[in-house]
């Protein structure tokens, strides 16, 4: 089977380096615009909630960062798996770039959730709540991935061993997602699903979705930014990079 050229191009560090460099300003611009507009909309434009008052505005931060944290882990696990199976170094570079960003978003989700929980549920932290527990586990998985990598001196070995950990941990993501269905939790059920119409009124839904899109673009913006640095680190002694540096094109 003759694979298309673009397939090989995505395994080529110089190509991805340049592509990322071209995409980053756009992703950053879109992300910042969406986040600024969304934040203003969430804080000022939208009226307060009938039940929760002003504090419900964390709705425009918490589910979005949680969603992105799960997406980040899937990106990390899938790319690490691809790198492990087909021995594509660039895939591992993507995985290792996704890890700290994913950990950051997970932390944001946990902190924003905790701040939301205090006035609404009465507690900063509910140890028994499955969704909180499994999201915390996700944070530990990101950190374990990075810690395991750091313990190995040989980068290839680090890549491959941590890939196994990443793939094993991916079962956590559907557990987080379905935890509200499987257990009685303090968390409510999902408001947006692929098949049904959303159970949120439109005036609240629009900033919700804007922030969701904003954080998603933000994740990919940060991912590509970090990926460029990771590529340079890994490809330090290659001809393409040295030529580019000498020609001032890096």
């Amino acid at each position, binding site marked *: 089977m003759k694979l298309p050229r673009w397939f090989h191009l995505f395994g080529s560090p110089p190509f991805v380096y340049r592509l990322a460099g071209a995409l980053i300003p756009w992703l950053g611009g879109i992300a910042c615009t969406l986040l600024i507009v969304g934040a203003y909309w969430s804080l000022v434009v939208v009226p307060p909630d009938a039940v929760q008052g002003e504090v419900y505005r964390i709705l425009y931060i918490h589910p979005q960062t949680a969603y992105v944290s799960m997406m980040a882990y899937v990106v990390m696990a899938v790319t690490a798996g691809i790198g*492990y199976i087909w021995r594509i170094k660039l895939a591992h570079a993507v995985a290792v770039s996704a890890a700290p960003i994913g950990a950051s978003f997970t932390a944001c989700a946990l902190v924003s959730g905790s701040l939301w929980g205090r006035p609404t549920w009465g507690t900063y932290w509910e140890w*028994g709540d*499955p969704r909180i*527990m*499994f999201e915390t*586990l996700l944070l*530990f*998985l990101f*950190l*374990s991935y990075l*810690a*395991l990598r750091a*313990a*190995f001196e040989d980068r290839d*070995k680090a890549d*491959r*061993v941590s890939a*196994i*950990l990443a*793939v*094993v*941990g991916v079962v956590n993501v559907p*557990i987080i997602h379905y935890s509200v269905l499987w257990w009685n939790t303090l968390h409510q059920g999902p408001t947006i699903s692929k098949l049904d119409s959303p159970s949120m009124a439109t005036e609240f839904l629009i900033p919700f979705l804007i922030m969701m899109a904003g954080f998603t673009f933000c994740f990919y913006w940060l991912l590509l930014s970090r990926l460029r640095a990771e590529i340079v680190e890994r490809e330090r002694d290659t001809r393409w990079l040295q030529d580019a540096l000498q020609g001032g094109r890096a």
Partner: protein
Amino acid sequence: MKRAFFAILQRDLQIAFRRVSEIANPLLFFIIVASLFPLAVSPDSEHLRGIGGGVLWVVALLSSLLALEGLFRADAEDGSLEQLMLSPVPLGVAVLAKVTAHWLVTIVPLVLLTPVLALSFALPVGVLPVMAFALLLATPTLSVLVALGAALTLGLRRGGAIVGLLVLPLTAPLLIFGTRAIDLGVYGESVAAPLYLLAALAALAVSLGPVAIAAALRVGVE
């Protein structure tokens, strides 16, 4: 394949029984640490009953980590692990045999010891069978996770420090369900749900775990 499984199992059991002190260490650790809690927290039986289930689970987890050094490292060092990889036996089967041996030698004595220690935590006698059964269901998963941690860190000189960081978060669901079973048992309610979940996790871990462990071993031995 079944013969190979039992052959490897028998070999590992024989090796383990030659070094009985290595079996005893985690058990002694378990007893000592579990005994520290009533001293440190409060000898009041109401308090103890409240924390007893959880304490025993946590200490059991920590004790199982102690025993993992012998799981793969000795074989990796003298080259028998590589021989096992080169043999026609699928590595997953060999791994399953080794993990089973580890479970029988290290974990099962722990499980048998737990009801005794549970009494010292003023847990009601009626909940002891529940606790033992819950541990019995949870420990295969635990052994698999511990073995995975050992395999992932095989190539490291000082892998012991990081194994806890890898394995303990993954054992959190076991802890949640296990202690829930004990709490339900203490209050006399049906413990079926957490036990089913523990059994499901065990089935998942025992079937898929050896695959991941074998992959990690291959990378570690490279």
